[in-house]
């Protein structure tokens, strides 16, 4: 996977991650929980209200029992559990909510404790309250029984009966509303009963005692119970609930705000993503459009391909023909270049002997009139011999003159010099004729293919041609072996050897050695051209036989020399190999098969 697609994948994952995060943030607020919590809180509130009502009812003795006081506790417990459960997450986050819930729980516990207390107290009080009417009735009945037993009407008994009834009425009233003055009146009556007890027969006194005892309980307990109930009602449960509600609402509002905030971000982010998707979509559409266009073009191209292939093939074959032609031209120009090199070399080689031959002959020619003069003088002698004596003197003078002239010639070494000059000229002419012979050997323009040719002789002619390049610079060491005569095209193979030898001398910078070795094995005649020049760098060695490859400046070489050499050797059924070491030298080996079958047709092309 490429780095780019990896980055794209990462980017996509990050974008989806952000989306998921924002969504979670928005979804984190559970509305159902919220409703349950508010509902629970409301239930709490109403339960508490009803409960207080029941407590008050109990207080006013409107209810027959105190179930109303205790029974809501069960419901309350379950509500409390539910609330605590629902709020548990929020409590962790919000300290004020925790405080309010804690204080609420504390209040509930408190209320519970107080209700237990109330239950205990109310049992005794209720018992006395229920029994007081019976006790008063028993007393009155007993008083009436006692009155019937006595004939005489006892006013004390009547008073007791009335007072007891009043007390009962007052007690019931007190139970309804615990007024202090009523309590004082009841207390006075009870004290009065206590004091009057001894005045009555025992049976009445006992009954009275019972009334007093229960009445005292009612009187004493009633305010206590009332206070307890007031305390219960007064417990700050409602406010606690309200507090919870408030703090919860604050927390919820906070969350709601957060949610709104994240929601906004989510919207923005989602819009961004949508835009991006839209952009990608747009680009995709464009790409599709382009693809469609290209597709159409391709279809068209496909349809016209056949025609174009035909056309191209035609063009290519034309180009190939042109290339072939220009290659032939290049080969021709390379041949001309090597020919030029050869001509220049030969011209210079011939120039020097020509110069001294010319000068020498000119010098001899200059002296010739003088020598001819001498001969003419001699020619006169026979006539002088026959002349009169007077003229004998002339003969003598003539002989002396000739003698002097000859002596002068001899003294000045002129005769020797003439000899030397003519000998020099002859050797110069020999040199020139050698050169011409080498030239002939080299090119063998008169013969296309030579049977039984000595390759060593061919190499010698190449050396003469190349002498201009080699002289003053390169020492040529010849190590010729016995070679069987082979048949080859001298003008072509000699061109190969000239190329190799000139290259070798160019590889030598100041002075060096070229070693020419020839040796034969069973199948091949090998010519090894070895120099101690600068060598061929390894990186260009594989390219040296490529056409147009040259290290020379533009215009200085065609880059065809070695490639043509390669081709020529190949056409002779031979091979050419190279070994080179930088700064040590280069060694070219040309191997020509002894019995070969030349591809004459190809040879024509190369030639």
């Amino acid at each position, binding site marked *: 996977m490429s780095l780019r697609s990896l980055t794209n994948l990462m980017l996509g994952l990050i974008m989806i991650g952000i989306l998921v995060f924002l969504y979670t943030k928005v979804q984190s607020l559970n509305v159902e929980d919220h409703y349950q919590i508010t509902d629970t809180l409301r239930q709490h509130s109403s339960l508490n209200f009803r409960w207080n009502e029941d407590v008050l009812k109990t207080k006013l003795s409107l209810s027959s029992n105190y179930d109303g006081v205790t029974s809501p506790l069960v419901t309350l417990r379950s509500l409390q559990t539910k609330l605590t459960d629902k709020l548990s997450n929020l409590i962790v986050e919000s300290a004020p909510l925790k405080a309010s819930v804690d204080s609420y729980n504390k209040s509930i516990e408190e209320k519970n404790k107080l209700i237990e207390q109330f239950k205990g107290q109310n049992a005794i009080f209720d018992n006395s309250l229920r029994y007081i009417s019976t006790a008063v009735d028993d007393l009155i009945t007993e008083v009436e029984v006692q009155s019937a037993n006595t004939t005489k009407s006892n006013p004390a008994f009547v008073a007791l009966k009335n007072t007891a009834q009043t007390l009962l009425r007052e007690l019931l009233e007190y139970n309804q509303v615990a007024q202090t003055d009523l309590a004082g009146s009841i207390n006075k009556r009870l004290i009065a009963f206590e004091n009057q007890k001894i005045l009555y027969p025992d049976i009445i006194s006992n009954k009275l005692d019972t009334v007093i005892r229960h009445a005292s309980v009612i009187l004493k307990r009633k305010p206590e119970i009332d206070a307890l109930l007031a305390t219960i009602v007064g417990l700050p449960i409602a406010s606690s609930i309200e507090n919870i509600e408030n703090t919860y609402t604050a927390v919820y509002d906070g969350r709601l705000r957060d949610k709104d905030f994240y929601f906004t971000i989510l919207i923005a982010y989602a819009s961004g993503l949508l835009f991006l998707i839209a952009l990608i979509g747009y680009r995709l559409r464009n790409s599709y459009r382009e693809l469609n266009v290209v597709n159409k073009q391709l279809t068209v191209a496909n349809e016209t391909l056949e025609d174009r292939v035909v056309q191209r093939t035609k063009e290519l074959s034309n180009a190939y023909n042109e290339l072939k032609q220009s290659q032939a031209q290049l080969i021709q120009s390379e041949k001309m270049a090597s020919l030029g090199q050869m001509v*220049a070399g030969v*011209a*210079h080689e011939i*120039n*020097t*002997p*020509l*110069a*001294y031959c*010319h*000068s*020498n002959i*000119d*010098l001899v020619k*200059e002296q010739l009139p003088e020598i001819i003069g001498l001969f003419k003088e001699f020619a006169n002698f026979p006539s002088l011999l026959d002349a009169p004596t007077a003229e004998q003197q002339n003969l003598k003078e003539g002989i002396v003159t000739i003698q002097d002239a000859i002596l002068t010639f001899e003294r*000045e070494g002129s005769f020797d*010099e003439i000899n*030397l*000059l003519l000998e*020099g000229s002859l*050797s*110069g002419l020999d040199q020139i004729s050698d050169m011409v012979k080498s030239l002939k050997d080299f090119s063998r323009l008169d013969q296309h293919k030579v049977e039984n040719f000595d390759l060593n002789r061919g190499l010698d002619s190449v050396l003469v041609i190349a002498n*201009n390049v080699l*002289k*003053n*610079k390169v020492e040529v060491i010849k190590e010729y072996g016995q070679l069987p005569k082979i048949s080859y095209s001298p003008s072509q193979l000699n061109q190969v050897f000239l190329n190799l030898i000139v290259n070798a001398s160019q590889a030598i910078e100041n002075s060096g050695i070229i070693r020419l070795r020839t040796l034969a094995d069973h199948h091949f005649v090998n010519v090894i051209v070895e120099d101690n020049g600068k060598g061929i760098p390894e990186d260009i060695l594989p390219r040296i036989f490529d056409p147009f490859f040259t290290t020379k400046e533009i215009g200085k070489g065609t880059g065809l020399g070695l490639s043509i050499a390669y081709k020529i050797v190949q056409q002779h059924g031979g091979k050419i190999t190279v070994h080179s070491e930088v700064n040590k030298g280069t060694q070219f080996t040309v191997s020509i098969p002894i019995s070969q079958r030349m591809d004459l047709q190809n040879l024509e092309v190369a030639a």
Partner: protein
Amino acid sequence: MNKKEKVLCVDDEIQILISLRALLRSKYEILIATSGEEALEILRKEPSIRVLISDQRMPKMLGAELLREAKKVAPGTMRLLLTGYSDLQSIIDSINEGEVFRFINKPWNNQEIRFIVDLAVNVAIETEQAAGSMADESLTHPTQEESFDLVQGQLDQQETAASTIATSDHQPSKEATRTAGIMVVDDDEGVASTLMEILNNTVPVYKAKTINEAIDLLSNQQISVIISETLVDSEDATEFIKILKQNYPSIITIILTQYHSADTMISLINQGQIYRYSYKPIQKNQLSYYIRSALTRHGTNLRKPELLKRHQVEEIKDVKNPSLVGKLIGGLKSLRSKMGF
């Protein structure tokens, strides 16, 4: 019998030496050497050698190198070079470093070679005294900055020389005391601007874009050195250079060209005695050095007018443009009278 003057012939081909000796020995004492090293050895031992004839192509030391060394060892010896098939660079080297008197083409004409050697021997004898003063021209290239100072120094020298002439000469001229200028004959502006950069206003530079302009300038201004292209405004300038040298040998000529031909160079030496030959693109350091050395040579020539004989030229053969010759000679006559020659 008078003692024969000495001529040294150098060639690795013994037959050439035999021929040359046969050719010249009746008039001169011929010494021979088959290598440059041997020739230098002889020159050191025999300072009275008048003429050195050397082949160009020899093993180890080329003719151009021998000429350069010979100029140091024996400045009075006239130097001739035998050339057959030579590359351009060796010809340029023998002009610039060897200060060759004549190139002799192989195969040569015996009469011509005798004539040249006679001339060279005579010049060498006549200038024997003065030639010593040319030896002090250093051949080492100075640095750029040095060369400016040197140019200035040579100018002072030149003026001193000019004033010496003014007092001693039979026809004193007011013009002679004025600083002579350098004329650039080239339709390429680059040469003149490079030259002005090099000279930095120490020497007047005159520009001639055609040969006619050059002739006009020559009649109106004092010119010590000419830097010329060989082809100016599609006109062959070599003839102008040759005629100028023939008629007014004291002007030093430097060729700065983009056209190279061995034949042109050889004829410019033989018939034009050009001082230096350089090719474009301009090498500023080299040009600066050539200018400096040309001004020195001009100064030396003013002090020792006999040295001008060392730059005698051949008759110009095959004049292609006779009207130019007439015009030139006309223009140069006024110049001559001005210069007091």
